[in-house]
């Protein structure tokens, strides 16, 4: 039974760790499906995390925090849009710039406002999103098998976790069942086709970036207001890049994205769990190896196992019709 409990615990932390990845990955899916590469997921998440924790601490409200996180993240997404859609700048450069600005400004503002070395004040109950205990969770906890699964895996997460996972079918639905989704997929493949169909390419891409901003905002809020009780500098720690790897891995499809993020979350959870304790046969695995695993896995699997990942054809290319 011990092993079973251990597995449930690892899966539980898999879920927790994959949530920010999943939100960021879906965020990237919106913009990249619309043909705008977004390497600035990392920066937007960081801004969201900072804005969320700050506002929550100042206004004593988790909801206001979440709102600010989303707003600031959208603002940064709009900067990316202004540079790469309106001014047809290089999308990678713009994304990298956003990451730098985010990393620098969050520390600087944090220090100026709160004087805690770039941290925001520790969030009190009510300023964070608390775990939601599902009805009957405590009652069934001791039932074998079903009990721990219900009480640990399904119940006991914050609202943002459920939102993240609900975003998967929702994104699928948007992509394949709505007018906006159809147009978004089209503009990522052939913007000229969208243009000649009488639709504004720029406005469509901006709207996709707003979606990106909302989701990276939630991802940031999750980091600073759920996983952690406040903002710590550089707390995204490369999650934005792993989310991009997951997006490629998932071939830009929402359901695949969920599985990719769960896999990466699992590797993360396993690495934490295994830290220090030797594995049978292999011996002690260095933590760095486990941390590199998502990237290594992406390269290996893309190279041979999951077939070609074809990005949206117009991705990364500004739409220019008169040269």
């Amino acid at each position, binding site marked *: 039974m011990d092993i079973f409990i251990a597995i449930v615990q690892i899966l539980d932390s898999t879920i927790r760790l994959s949530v920010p990845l999943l939100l960021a990955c879906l965020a990237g899916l919106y913009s990249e499906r619309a043909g705008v590469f977004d390497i600035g997921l990392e920066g937007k998440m960081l801004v969201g995390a900072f804005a969320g924790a700050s506002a929550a601490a100042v206004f004593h409200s988790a909801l206001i925090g979440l709102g600010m996180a989303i707003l600031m993240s959208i603002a940064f997404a709009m900067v990316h849009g202004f540079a790469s859609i309106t001014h047809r700048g290089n999308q990678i450069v713009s994304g990298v710039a956003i990451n730098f600005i985010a990393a620098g400004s969050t520390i600087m503002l944090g220090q100026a406002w709160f004087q805690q070395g770039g941290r925001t004040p520790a969030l009190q109950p009510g300023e964070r999103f608390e775990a939601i205990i599902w009805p009957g969770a405590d009652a069934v906890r001791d039932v074998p098998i079903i009990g721990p699964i219900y009480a640990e895996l399904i119940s006991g997460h914050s609202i943002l976790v459920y939102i993240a996972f609900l975003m998967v079918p929702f994104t699928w639905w948007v992509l394949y069942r709505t007018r906006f989704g159809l147009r978004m997929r089209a503009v990522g*493949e052939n913007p000229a086709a969208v243009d000649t169909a009488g639709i504004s390419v720029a406005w469509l891409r901006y709207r996709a970036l707003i979606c990106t901003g909302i989701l990276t905002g939630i991802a940031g809020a999750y980091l600073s207001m759920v996983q952690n009780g406040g903002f710590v500098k550089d707390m995204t720690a490369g999650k934005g890049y792993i989310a991009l790897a997951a997006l490629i891995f998932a071939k830009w499809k929402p359901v695949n994205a969920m599985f990719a993020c769960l896999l990466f979350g699992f590797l993360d959870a396993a690495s934490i769990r295994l830290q220090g304790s030797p594995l049978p046969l292999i011996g002690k695995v260095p933590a760095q190896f486990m941390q590199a695993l998502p990237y290594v896995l992406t390269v290996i699997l893309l190279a041979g196992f999951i077939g070609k990942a074809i990005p949206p054809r117009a991705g990364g290319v500004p739409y220019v019709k008169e040269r």
Partner: protein
Amino acid sequence: MAQAAIELIGINKSFGAVRANRDINLEVARGTIHGIVGENGAGKSTLMSILYGFYQADSGEIRVGGKPVSIHTSNDAIALGIGMVHQHFMLVDNFTVLENVILGAENDALLKSSIAKARSELERLEREYGLEVDPDAVIEELPVGLQQRVEILKALYRGAEILILDEPTGVLTPAEADHLFRILKQLKDQGKTIVLITHKLREIMAITDTVSVMRQGTMVATRTTKETTVGELAELMVGRRVLLRVEKGQSEAGAIKLSVKNLTVKDSRGVTMVDNVSFDVRGGEIVGIAGVAGNGQSELLEAISGIRHAVSGEVTLDGKPIDLTGKADPGELRDRGLAHVPEDRHHVGLVLAFEENENSILGYHDDERYLKGPFLDIDAIMADAKDKIEKYDIRPGNPRLKTANFSGGNQQKIVLAREMEQDPGVLIVGQPTRGVDVGAIEFIHKRLIAMRDQGKAVLVVSVELDEIRSLSDRILVMFAGRVVGERGPEATEGELGLLMAGVEHQEAAE
């Protein structure tokens, strides 16, 4: 005649330094088919794209149905009942036909009702016009003829009353083109107005009511089709007399330069596309391969030029074998004197993002002439590019311009100039004049014949029967991957047409 459906008044448009349209006036009467002809780069596509709201005119006025209108986006044009089939299709390749049709013309925020409506509309259009296409097929899996059909369906679905077609027949087989024209006539009988851009003057004579001629950005003439001739139109286009059929002397065939024996080639799906084909090309002769597109000509060319594996067979160049099964290295073949003008210039012949001068040496960039030690000799390359521009009349004549900014016909000339100027012993050319204007066709044909007269072996593949008949010293007809007949240049169109349709072939098989 009825009132004007469209009036363009004083339209000007420049792209940077290029003045694509200058003071254009054009009036198209309602319920007619109006042809527009003109050289490559004359500004035909630009003018129509302005009418369709894709580009914005710098100045000028547009009237639709007599009323002045402002068309800022394609949406405005669509709302005015204007539809356009672009020269390069505007389709989302990995979408289904249905998705492409409803894109931008959805009923509401959810797709469900749009899809249902489009399905029944497509069925109606199919019945009414014989525009058959599977609504659930994915675009990239459809042949170009059907892709174009989707473009037409898109326009009709949006209720277009005025339909612009920009070089629709460039990619069609003769039978497909006939079908298209039947549809256009039917649309005209229903009172719709059609603007047709084409380089094929025969089509203009066959189907249009009026025809306008453009030259270097200006509108030089408008004629009633019945009262003009192909010769007059060609002269108006180019500004001088044009030989529609180039004269050539008797060929003096010499030694065998290129020999193909029992060549069999399969495509990527494993279907046999070239089936046991044998022929020789001698120095000093032009051998033409006729056939309806898709009967193995493309694969044959690719195999000979080393781009595609052959399953079996033997090809010799100047008596020495080419290693076909190991996928011969095109670079090595080039060194051995085999030049290749590919059919698909966009994907195989050019790097569109490169400057003209770079494309004009592509593949020959290792040649000493273009090198200074380990570096490219930019001055030599520029001089060489300018030379080719002049000789082949490539417009605009700026070697620093990005290749994508040249019109389609001029891009073709860039490839031709590169391959022909290398003075190869054997030249193989796919679709030499696809999308090229009459003046340039004359020029290209003259060049090919001049090469022949210098004793080169020339192999030409074309779906244009006229071209094959006027160029070739010997004509091979391909059908279903086999050479089903060989004829002399005096063969009639009907005779070749039957061969191309595989008629004789089937009789022989029985």
